[in-house]
């Protein structure tokens, strides 16, 4: 049960990524062409609701199911890591039309070619570990 609940949340994630066509390469292309509101509406509404949620977390109005405080770990500061890492990620996102979440959903959809992308992404994470010390952060 401890891990099963995460599996169930993952199923909901896979379904919503599919049903709202977030897994579609075309939706990402269309977003970067500014030709539809769809993706902006999804991310925007999630972020606005998320802001309200985070306020409740910070004020300890909402706690975990075990009654512990919810602490959202801060992101690491640094222009270089976030900007250069972000640009590289964006180039891949624009080309593959899938970020890490949708990649796995597409695997469940039976898309064989996404295996190459997932392998590449895992290898990319490994390469980051290799070059970490030499990169600006």
């Amino acid at each position: 049960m401890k891990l099963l609940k995460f599996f169930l949340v993952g199923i909901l994630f896979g379904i919503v990524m599919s049903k709202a066509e977030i897994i579609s390469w075309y939706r990402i292309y269309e977003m970067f062409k500014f030709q539809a509101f769809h993706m902006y509406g999804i991310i925007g509404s999630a972020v606005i609701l998320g802001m309200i949620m985070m306020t409740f977390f910070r004020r300890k109005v909402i706690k975990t199911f075990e009654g512990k405080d919810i602490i959202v770990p801060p992101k690491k500061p640094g222009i270089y890591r976030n900007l250069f890492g972000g640009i590289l990620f964006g180039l891949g996102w624009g080309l593959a039309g899938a970020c890490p979440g949708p990649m796995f959903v597409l695997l469940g959809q039976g898309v064989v070619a996404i295996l190459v992308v997932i392998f590449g992404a895992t290898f990319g994470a490994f390469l980051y570990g290799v070059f970490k010390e030499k990169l600006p952060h």
Partner: protein
Amino acid sequence: MEFITQPWDWYVAGPIIALIMFLLYYFGERFGVSHNLETFCSIGGAGRFLDYFKIDWRKNSWNLMFVAGAIAGGFIAAQWLTTSTEVAINPQTIEDLAAIGFKDAGATYLPNEIFGIENMLTLKGFLILLIAGIMVGFGARWAGGCTSGHAIVGLSNLELPSLIAVIGFFIGGLVMTWFILPLIF
């Protein structure tokens, strides 16, 4: 059932994603998919080469279960919850894609020009998929997050690093879409 089998609008999907984020924090964990890529490296034995990957990956089991669920969710949606995989994209998008050699844009979720098996089996096609993946994985770990960790959680939490990362996502995505894709195809 029709409200489920038809495509879901943004105002349905956005709140559900917020709910998913809420549940993960309520269950005492976080929302961030790209972290799993590092966990895969650790499971695969990358810790033998680099201390960076020497972690007890079992403490990330919850996130691996989330990924397993995402795969199952994709399968469930494809098998039982979808009648058509046609994507109603902007007619202008279809025209723009036709101009760079993408046929029947929006007829299915993915372009055959990139994800078709016959294209995957060519050197160029294979490299496109592989390099796209490497950029996503390398970039996400360099930036310390992807769309979930930075764009959704980070922006919700008013994090400046996430704002910088999301600006980066868009610089990269715009350069790829407007300038590089027309050169590749």
